[in-house]
């Protein structure tokens, strides 16, 4: 019904109500917009979804680990490996666990240390000519531990000593793999789908640091 059809005595009240309702709607929408423009989220959410500074959405996943144990990242070790994978992985598959995006992370709980640690990883590069090598930077607890360039389709054993500064008194190892040569699905595809390596196995050994 057009407003002009409202009987005169009620018309003014209807107009005022209309303006008031419109003002409430507009005000509510401005407030909601202001809230949305100031999200109240944690750093991990912000980094992945909003700022898009990482392709690896950090989670509080952490797996237990016994020194000297070799964890397979092929299909046969999927269940064991699942607990230490944080983000940036796809699979496990028959040829290993494939990296996804520009960073992958593992996190594991280790017993108290009175010694140093050596990590042994079996990894293969994902190759699509002209990209025939993959540079990987490995950091432990935020400290750069090793850099390696993988080439060829066959898995390669990579061994490095974890810097003592990365160990400190912590009982947790947060291992980040940063890929400098990830291969996008297509030129326009999202970087969350980049492929770089296949992780085949992982192992930590105690070493004498004296």
């Amino acid at each position: 019904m057009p407003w002009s059809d409202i009987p005169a005595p009620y018309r003014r009240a209807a107009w005022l109500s209309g303006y008031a309702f419109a003002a409430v709607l507009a005000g509510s929408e401005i407030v909601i917009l202001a809230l949305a423009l100031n999200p109240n989220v944690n750093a991990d959410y912000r980094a992945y979804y909003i700022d898009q500074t990482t392709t690896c959405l950090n989670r509080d996943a952490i797996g237990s680990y016994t020194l000297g144990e070799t964890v397979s990242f092929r299909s046969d070790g999927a269940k064991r490996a699942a607990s230490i994978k944080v983000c940036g992985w796809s699979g496990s598959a028959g040829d290993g666990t494939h990296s996804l995006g520009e960073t992958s992370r593992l996190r594991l709980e280790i017993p108290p240390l009175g010694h140093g640690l050596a990590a042994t990883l079996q990894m293969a590069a994902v190759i699509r000519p002209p990209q025939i090598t993959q540079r990987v930077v490995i950091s432990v607890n935020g400290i750069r531990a090793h850099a390696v360039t993988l080439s060829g389709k066959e898995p390669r054993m990579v061994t490095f000593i974890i810097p003592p500064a990365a160990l400190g008194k912590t009982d947790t190892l947060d291992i980040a793999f940063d890929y400098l040569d990830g291969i996008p699905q297509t030129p326009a595809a999202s970087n969350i789908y980049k492929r770089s390596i296949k992780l085949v196995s992982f192992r930590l050994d105690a070493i004498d640091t004296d």
Partner: protein
Amino acid sequence: MALEDVARPSAGGRSIAVAVAAVPLLFVVSGLAIRYAAFASVSEGSGFAAYARALCRWDCAWYIGISELGYERFPIPNQSNVGRWGFFPFYPMLVAAIRVVFPFPTILVATVTSIVCSYAACLVAWPLLEKNMRAYVLYCAFLLSGPFSFHFTTFLTEPLFVLLTSCVFLALKRSSYLAAGVSSALLSATRLVGVLVVFATVIQMFREHREQGGSTLSFPRWVLGRPDLLVAIFISPAGLFAYILFLYLTIGDGFAFLHVQRAFGRVAGNPLVFLWDGLSAVSTTGWLPTAPQWSALAAITGLALSAVLAARRQYGAALFCALCIILPLITNLASMVRYVIGLAPLTMLVAVLLSASRLTYLAALVFFLGACYFMTVAWIGGYLALV
């Protein structure tokens, strides 16, 4: 055609009303029969439940999840990056509400609800098609028995989106701005692009103002002097804002529906580049267009039809449809065919154009019914262009 005969001026209003109600009902039945035949030809199961499950592909599973479990908080369970936040709440909420009354499996309730919505969308289209019976028959056939009828009869937002879009444009046609505003509010809670229909409302207001002899410059003052128009405008995005508030209160991010697109691999880019990439994705195995080519062609056809709407002075509908195509095109071509065929003003325009001559009308009708079978088989088989 018998149906045309009933619609002749000599026929009484009652027989026309019966025809208007019966035509979509006929296509509901024929569509079910054709799609079921397609389902039976590729599936081992039988029965309506198995049929409904088989047609529940792609996004359908997300809507079932929302209808049954609601939205996740953060962090998302099972170490997933993809939350359900990208899928708007109104239709799954509606299905959940109906399921309270009819406690059947969600997909069955949703399938019946979708058919009812599409049927209702046909009825609403009758006055929008200027009571052109040929166009009406084609439109009903397209929605309920056509090549994309599975989109309008399973648990996707298209049935409700088409119904609400038609309600908005019918309300605008009758200058019922408050009704248009309320329908727009529901539309904006159904799909993100639904909020864009507010531009069509403002354009219709402007048109009415001009028809009353008002000048362009006096339009803002005219609107500000009419609280009913202000309410209609501000209530139009209310569904979207309600969802933003919900996301803020539960996740802390009101724009989570946008931000989660990253986890689906959607990246903002140049729509023209996406179109070119799609058209360039030539098949290496046959002559049929590839899925990206179909998607690019759908977007181009949709934009061309929007231009035709504009040429026919339906500026509001033209702008709404063009924006509904361009906005998703900014991320990529995914689901473009579904987005285009879900734009009611475009499909109505196609129905009007094809009904211009008896030959094209009959050919289109036969094509729609025949293609329904093969496209349903392709949908069940997971053909990528139909996602």
